[in-house]
């Protein structure tokens, strides 16, 4: 929320989020839609999100992802209480797990394969994280660029930009008085277009998944609603556009969707609390009146 103060002391406050917050939010939501483990978020990472979303999701995003592994000393596989959100290359930390342990495979029967053998036996709580989660879903338009990707890697790049719509030009204006401050409240809809560029061998299927999740899964709508964002459910089909780059065709699929952001802006300005009226005649002050505001 941005507030601008003017020289006369009045101020304009807006709930509108900026493009960096929008892209950070879509990075998080896209990751979740693709089944990427997007936790834990550091304090610095939380601060990149729209404030309302950050506040609502803080506890969830800061919490590490944990499950119980039944370890056997010297063995690299262990049954897990749950394999939800577990996939290869995640880091695993906990009692009985050696430093640098990673998940190498998640098999049937809730069996998890680890890169290093366990050092103790018995059920232990393990904490999982995906150090590549922000690499799996990236944000475009970085000031000095960013590293590229492997042709075999499934990555996604999100970009957000505000767009012009007729509906966005209509405003609902309400005036109210708070004490002696007049508050002009303006509510309008700002439209955004979010672009996803999916690369990798599964790019087309991942684009389909995001398109479906946007309109069918309520938890993502709820997540976006905390920042005042609502998806326009008329979403074009993903477009498959492989790129010829350096002698190879790189798989790529593009998707975009429009969102409406509810923006509320308040302009606060002072009003006249009272006016003193002094009526003078040749003989002196005739009358003094005070006009009091509501």
């Amino acid at each position, binding site marked *: 929320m941005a507030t601008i103060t003017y020289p006369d002391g009045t101020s304009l406050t807006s709930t509108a989020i900026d493009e*960096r917050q929008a*892209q*950070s939010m879509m*990075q*998080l939501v896209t990751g979740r839609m693709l089944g990427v483990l997007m936790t834990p*978020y*550091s304090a*610095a*990472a*939380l601060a*990149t*999100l729209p404030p309302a979303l950050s506040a609502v999701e803080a506890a969830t995003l800061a919490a590490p992802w944990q499950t119980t592994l039944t370890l056997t000393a010297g063995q690299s596989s262990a049954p897990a209480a749950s394999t939800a959100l577990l996939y*290869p*290359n995640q880091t695993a930390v906990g009692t009985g797990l050696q430093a640098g342990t990673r998940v190498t495979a998640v098999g049937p029967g809730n069996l998890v394969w680890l890169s290093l053998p366990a050092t103790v036996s018995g059920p232990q709580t393990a904490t999982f994280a995906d150090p*590549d989660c*922000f*690499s*799996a879903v*990236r*944000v475009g338009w*970085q000031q*000095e*660029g*960013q*590293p*590229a*990707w*492997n042709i*075999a*890697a*499934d*990555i996604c790049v999100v970009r957000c930009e505000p767009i012009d719509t007729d509906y966005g030009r209509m405003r609902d204006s309400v005036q109210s008085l708070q004490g002696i401050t007049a508050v002009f409240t303006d509510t309008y809809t700002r439209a955004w277009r979010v672009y996803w560029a999916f690369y990798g061998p599964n790019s087309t299927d991942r684009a389909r998944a995001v398109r479906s999740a946007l309109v069918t899964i309520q938890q993502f709508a709820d997540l976006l609603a905390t920042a005042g964002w609502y998806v326009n459910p008329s979403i074009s089909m993903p477009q498959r556009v492989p790129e010829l780059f350096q002698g190879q065709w790189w798989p790529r699929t593009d998707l975009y969707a429009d969102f409406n952001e509810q923006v509320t802006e308040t302009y606060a300005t002072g009003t006249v609390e009272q006016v003193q009226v002094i009526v003078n005649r040749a003989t002196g002050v005739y009358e003094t009146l005070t006009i009091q505001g509501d």
Partner: protein
Amino acid sequence: MGQINLTRVVAGNMLPEPYTVERSTGAFVAGGWQTTSINVAGYGVVSVADKQDLQMVPEGDRVTGAMVFHSQQRIYETQQDGGYGQPEYGAGGFGVATQFVSDKIAWRGQLYRVLAVSPYPNRGYWRAVGVRMSGQ
């Protein structure tokens, strides 16, 4: 047939001069790519790749320009990130690198971002073209 080693030309005592290379490392974080960098001493022949042109646009004046930097040590462009499950950070054919986005070279009060590299390690040098970043 032997190869010509140009190290003495690139870093001999006639034309070369010092510069500083800002070498980046970094990570993908929430919101995008975050770069941190360390300074590495560079030494080699520096010459002009593209003159400094003044662009006059309604918004103001901007100065372009590019320089060529020669070095015995490798100069890096943005390296491919192994990324999601891929371990081979910046292999690139010249051994594993530890940096991620292009070097920036500080020379005579200006920063130049490396946009092109000619790899001649077989002849004892690297040649890089950097563009003037400040615009002023």
